[in-house]
């Protein structure tokens, strides 16, 4: 006598245990996708001033970045290549990143849908507006370092264009809608190339932007910019503006363009500290009393190491089936310990010239502002996604339970519930991608010296001499000195 029920039950038994195993493995795999340690390696190499190796670390990790983070790969490599002195290659990867950002203007519904059921890491990374501007800033510095001033000015024009489009798009006057440092650098490039009129326009916009963003950018108007405004308004015979700036900056010492004609310019750009990183901030929302107890107990056990307990959380909450997880990004700043740099230019003969750098861009403040501006949108989307994933998992669980029916229905339901709800919890992850090879702060110093060969010596405010470099400058020329201070 055949007993089909027994066969079916045996089949379901195998199937259920197989599904549970698969569920566990899948959840563990998903939850195991942690952040890469490549930035730790990069920081180590930069600390050792081994920029080629820092770039090699990024290059090796190209596949790890994946197709969704092409822009981020370009950004990260653009910076390490610049530090390694590979300006042309740096420009090539940054140009690709810029073109990719342009292409990403068009959103793909299927990509957005996929991200909605998984997480925002499935979306192509296009960077925050300030990061996009920094692409042009780096390219401009690369071209200037290569002595290709026409190309450096192309980047200055692009900065102006991108910032104008951003200002048109951003209605909130207190938001990031202009960039004082990028404007200021554009002005320096224009003036170095002999275009004093455009230099003044850029300086004026930079001054206005530094003033407008002062409340949150943690960056004041650089003292050097005041002198630049006085010099260019004087050179252009803009009497009215010159008087206004004289009244605004009575203490500022400056030299006329005529006095600087026979001198050479040295521009020091110092990248200090490390850009902030992002971490997951998990919000576990219980939707039953049991689940509330579970969340409280679980958080009591593992609050300090939430990142490491993602796999366990996923299984635990998947089994309970009544916990909805929402992941939000949290910014962790990595502030520089170097508030000011002193750079000494020692000529072959004569007295050395000492310049002090001053803060021109606080990247952490920009990242903070960018994230806070987007947080409401991120949170709304995350909650909607969590609710959608939960309802989908609940539907799949009930559907499977009813489809099997009988005494094995609840077992199948449990397996499907663990799989789908565990997946919902495990796949919940915030988008933590950001341009991590950027510094915490960008400092700038500008000085004019007699033509000749100079030995550069950098001494951090905290300690002794750190680096040595030699530059050769002729009258009317500009030398760009880029230095990286990881502390």
């Amino acid at each position: 006598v055949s007993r089909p029920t027994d066969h079916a039950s045996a089949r379901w038994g195998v199937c259920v245990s197989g599904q549970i195993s698969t569920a566990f493995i899948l959840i563990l795999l998903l939850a195991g996708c942690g952040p890469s340690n490549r930035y730790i390696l990069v920081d180590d190499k930069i600390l050792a001033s081994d920029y080629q190796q820092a770039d090699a670390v990024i290059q090796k990790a190209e596949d790890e970045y994946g197709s969704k983070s092409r822009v981020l790969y370009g950004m990260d490599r653009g910076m390490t290549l610049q530090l390694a002195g590979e300006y042309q290659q740096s420009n090539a990867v940054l140009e690709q990143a810029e073109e990719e950002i342009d292409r990403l203007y068009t959103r793909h519904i299927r990509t957005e849908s996929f991200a909605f059921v998984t997480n925002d890491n499935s979306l192509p990374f296009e960077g925050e507006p300030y990061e996009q501007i920094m692409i042009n800033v780096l390219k401009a510095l690369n071209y200037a370092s290569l002595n290709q001033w026409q190309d450096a000015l192309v980047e200055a024009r692009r900065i102006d264009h991108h910032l104008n489009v951003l200002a048109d798009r951003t209605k909130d006057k207190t938001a990031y809608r202009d960039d004082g440092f990028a404007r200021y650098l554009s002005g320096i490039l224009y003036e170095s190339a002999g275009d004093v009129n455009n230099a003044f326009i850029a300086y004026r916009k930079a001054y206005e932007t530094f003033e407008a963003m002062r409340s949150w950018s943690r960056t004041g108007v650089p003292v050097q910019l005041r002198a630049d405004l006085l010099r260019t308004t004087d050179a252009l015979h803009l009497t009215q503006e010159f008087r206004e700036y004289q009244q605004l900056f009575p203490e500022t010492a400056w030299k006329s363009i005529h006095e600087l004609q026979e001198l050479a310019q040295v521009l020091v750009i110092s990248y200090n500290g490390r850009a902030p990183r992002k971490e997951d901030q998990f919000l576990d929302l219980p939707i039953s009393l049991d689940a509330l107890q579970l969340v409280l107990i679980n958080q009591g056990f593992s609050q300090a190491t939430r990142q490491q307990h993602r796999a366990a959380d996923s299984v635990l909450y998947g089994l309970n089936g009544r916990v909805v997880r929402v992941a939000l990004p949290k910014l962790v700043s990595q502030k520089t310990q170097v508030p000011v740099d002193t750079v000494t230019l020692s000529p072959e003969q004569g007295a050395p010239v000492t310049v002090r750098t001053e803060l021109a861009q606080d990247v952490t403040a920009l990242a903070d502002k960018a994230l806070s501006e987007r947080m409401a949108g991120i949170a709304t989307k995350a909650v909607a996604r969590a609710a959608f994933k939960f309802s989908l998992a609940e539907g799949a669980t009930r559907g499977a339970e009813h489809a099997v029916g009988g005494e094995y229905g609840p077992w199948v339901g449990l397996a499907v519930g663990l799989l789908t709800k565990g997946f919902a919890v495990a796949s919940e992850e915030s988008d933590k991608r950001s341009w991590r090879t950027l510094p915490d702060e960008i400092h700038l110093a500008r000085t004019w010296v007699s033509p000749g060969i100079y030995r550069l010596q950098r001494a951090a405010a905290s300690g002794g001499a750190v680096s040595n470099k030699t530059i050769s400058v002729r009258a009317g020329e500009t030398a760009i000195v880029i230095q990286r201070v990881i502390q």
Partner: protein
Amino acid sequence: MGSSMRSGQCCSNVAVLVLVLIGLSGCGAETKVTRVDEGVVTDLSGRWNDTDSRMVAETMVKEALEYPWLNNFSQSKRRQPVVVVGTVMNNSHEHISVQTFVTDLERELTNSQKVTFVAAKNERDEVRTERKEQAMYAREDTQKSPGKEIGADYMMKGTIATILDEADGTKAMFYQIDLQMVDLESNAKVWYGQKKIKKVIEKKRTVF
């Protein structure tokens, strides 16, 4: 019981639909290469491209040869004018290969058989080095002696500038190319050519 079963089935269907969508999203694009004639217009990104460079060079050279400066010179000196290319400044928003554009101009003007081009400043150094080396290493009857270079009568110089406007994914790019022929003896500008190109580049905000 029945309604809960229906809702369960409905949710299962939604789950299947989502999985199908995810599966579909995995379909990747493939690379396709097609050889085309060099004259085919290929406007892909809207940026300055080979078509712009060639068309502007052809139009401006045609215009330059129609103006009276050429005939005036040929009649008074009874020879072709000698032209050297000066600087063509890139004042645009793009990293334009100015050298390609200048080469297009030189080619069009030389092929017209109405002007003679001499090597520009950056090319002359290489030629002079070669002559110096010939003086040291080449057979005497094949050596080229110095001091026989042809001095240019005119210098051609110009600018490529752009005005860019953008809003909501639509860009209006306006190129203005200005070229001038300057008499090297008198500094007089004997010809002034201008070519304008306007492109509108539209991008969709969403696609499937």
